[in-house]
């Protein structure tokens, strides 16, 4: 049980978040402001409130909220007249695909470039990677997206500006989304590999006559993965931040864009549903990370 610290706390986190959402929505006085368009009449608001029980005492409302939660019932979306949960669950797979691909690309690229940079610290390749990752970490993703659209879609017409479809629709969104994680992870891999390559047990491997390849990929890499996994875990949550922007820019029908649209349309039911779905996904991710950690580091197993 102690191996699953991350997951445990994400679980608590989720609970906290859902509580927060509940209280936030009740805190602002009249919840109907959240659900109805701004120009709704007072009479409509009253009817709405009575219908959804917003004039009941708080604890009753809370009870109902929890029950609804367990049924995964967030109410109906006002703009689309369907169950909010259904809408959220439809949008989520698109985001999942986008984010996982971006993470995979960033991860693979980071391991490759970071390892190569670590072999010769201070060398040409290393400095190039450092500059790239620094730049990657400094550019706002929406701006990069705009420039890319400008060059590749508007001027050159090679890639589409928005929507889903074949491979060409994926190129720009993936690039923008993977840029910052690639830069960050690359730096971490590099630092970690430099540490591992200069550690005493690598000297032992040299003394045994091991080849360079074995040393990098068998001895050093496995030890460097531990901090990388930790950072990757923190990053994954932040990838969702990026997803919101990328989906908005490129019209990707994922949960990020759904939330923004819902905010614009004041569709609170959808917002709530989206939050829950996202939180669950993060929980699953953290569980996987915990497992990875145990598998990779025997010291954790026997602590």
């Amino acid at each position, binding site marked *: *049980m*102690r191996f699953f610290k991350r997951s445990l706390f994400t679980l608590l986190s989720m609970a906290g978040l859902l509580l927060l959402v509940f209280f936030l929505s009740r805190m602002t006085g009249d919840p109907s402001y959240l659900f109805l368009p701004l120009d709704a009449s007072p009479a409509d608001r009253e009817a709405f409130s009575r219908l959804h029980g917003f004039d009941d005492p708080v604890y009753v409302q809370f009870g109902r909220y929890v029950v609804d939660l367990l049924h995964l019932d967030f109410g109906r979306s006002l703009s689309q007249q369907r169950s909010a949960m259904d809408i959220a669950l439809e949008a989520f797979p698109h985001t999942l695909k986008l984010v996982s691909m971006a993470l995979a690309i960033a991860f693979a690229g980071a391991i490759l470039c970071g390892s190569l940079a670590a072999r010769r610290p201070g060398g040409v390749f290393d400095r190039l990677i450092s500059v790239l990752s620094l730049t990657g970490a400094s550019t706002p993703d929406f701006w990069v997206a705009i420039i890319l659209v400008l060059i590749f879609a508007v001027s050159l017409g090679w890639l589409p500006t928005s929507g889903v479809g074949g491979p060409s629709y994926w190129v720009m969104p993936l690039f923008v989304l993977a840029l910052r994680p690639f830069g960050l992870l690359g730096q971490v891999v590099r630092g970690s590999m430099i540490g591992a390559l*200069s*550690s*005493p*047990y690598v*000297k*032992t*491997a*040299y*003394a*045994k*006559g*091991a*080849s360079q390849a*074995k040393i990098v990929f068998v*001895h050093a890499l*496995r*030890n460097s993965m531990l901090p990388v996994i930790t950072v990757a875990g923190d990053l994954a949550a932040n990838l969702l931040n990026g997803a919101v922007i990328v989906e908005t820019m490129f019209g990707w029908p994922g949960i990020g864009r759904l939330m923004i649209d819902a905010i614009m349309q004041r569709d609170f039911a959808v917002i709530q549903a989206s939050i829950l779905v996202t939180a669950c996904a993060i929980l699953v991710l953290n569980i996987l990370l915990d497992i990875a950690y145990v598998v*990779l*580091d*025997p*010291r954790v197993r*026997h602590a």
Partner: protein
Amino acid sequence: MTEPHTPLLAIEGLKVQFSGPRGVVRAVDGINLTVERGETLAILGESGSGKSVSASVVMNILDMPPGRITAGSVRFEGRDLLAMPPAERRKINGSEIAIIFQDPLAHLNPVYSVGWQIAEVFRIHGRARDAADAREKAIALMERVGITNARSRADQYPHQFSGGQRQRVMIAMALALSPKLIIADEPTTALDVTVQRQILDLLKDLQREMGMGLILITHDLAVAGLMADRVAIIKDGTIVESGGIREAFTAPKAAYTRQLLEAIPHVERTRRSGEEGELRPPLLVARDLTKEYQLSRGLVGSSAGTLRAVDRVGFTLREKQTLGIVGESGSGKSTVARLLMRLTEPSSGSVHYRDRNLFLLRGAELLAFRRDVQMVFQDPYGSLNPKMTVAEIIAEPLAIHRDILPRAQWRDRVRELLGLVGLKPEHAERYPHQFSGGQRQRIAIARALASEPRIIICDEAVSALDVSIQAQIITLLADLRDKLDLSYIFITHDLPVVRSFADEIMVMKAGAVVEHGRTDDLFLRPRDDYTRKLLSAGEIPAWMQRIETVGHPGAPRAETRNAP
């Protein structure tokens, strides 16, 4: 040797440089060495002498850059290792030349099992039919080096073994392909004293059995005297003396050799406080001192048992007396120090300082206690705040206990203290990183003296220093004791060191006191088995004990017991 003969290993004119922040450092500046089959050569030197660098060159594991071999050759059975193509060079490592490192925990890969790492040697050089065969060979090796239950332990990880066992694992890895030459770089330094002898004996057995050449790198003359046939003494990158070990030690030619021999704690050169038989007033009295730690497991928190770090320890420290507490790692001696300084609370038992219960003191009384009892720590690098000047460090007790001296007089007091410990006034404005280890300990001692304490607790205060520096610091401590009427509690794992310095010695094992008596009694007539074990482990070989103060009559000597 009149006929042409190729030694097993011949290093000629080797020069190695390092480029660093302050320019170029010549770590090895022209050394010549030979090793024959079946013989043991000890390379003896202190830290920074270049001994480990030389070993790294032979093994081809030197970091280049920042290191660079600028001259010389290293011939193994006639072939120049430095001129070999990399692929061929790689084949020699592990199969014909092998190395045993100093710190086995750091040198074993934490994420692979011990068996896997030993078997790797076979796999790399293609000497096993398959993975299962390599594993069997690894298990056989583990048994040979004395690891019990080898078959089941082969799948365990380095952190699950003790220090001594890990070193056995490293020895197994080195032996795997029966190499012709083994380099052992300070193989026992990181281990407990009793374990050290076992490992050295193991190495000697294996060498006799397999007839390989052994290069033993060490800073410890006793270890060299025990194991080696020939010795090469290295200082500042050059060899100052070499030859048969007995000749070198009994009739040394170089001044440095004499200096090293003089630093060996010698029974004649004691610095005890002298006045025996007189019972002076007690200062610090410990009774049944006990400290237990709860071992808890998992989230549920059910305790898996308690660990008794200190088990009913008792003693009386009198004025102007020096008490030595000797034990290996895990003996509880450091916990006792922490209890005496009230850095932690005991589970039971008491400590009385001048008849007041230490653990009940509060406020002004506690502060007064902290004035009177000071501590010098083991780590000269960590015990001084790197961002403070020496003056600020030494004056800190004055800043904490404002009633000792008005601020205006701090500068002079600092200078006075610097002088007392053998440093210069201009050192006051410098920062710790500008000093060597021995000098930093002097600064730490000056700091301890600032509040005019009655008792100084030295927690392994000289253990991290070179042997020759250790002797200097102990002399300093003895001088201060005589000048300032101090009492010491001297905690160490090194029994010989404390023999020259302490009036009484307390031997600890697993938290409890196993023997306690006057120094000479303990050394000449030890009552407990463990004490006997410690004594024999730290023993200097008989032929070395007969070396007189290795000086000519005119050489300066430390005073003996009867000096005024």
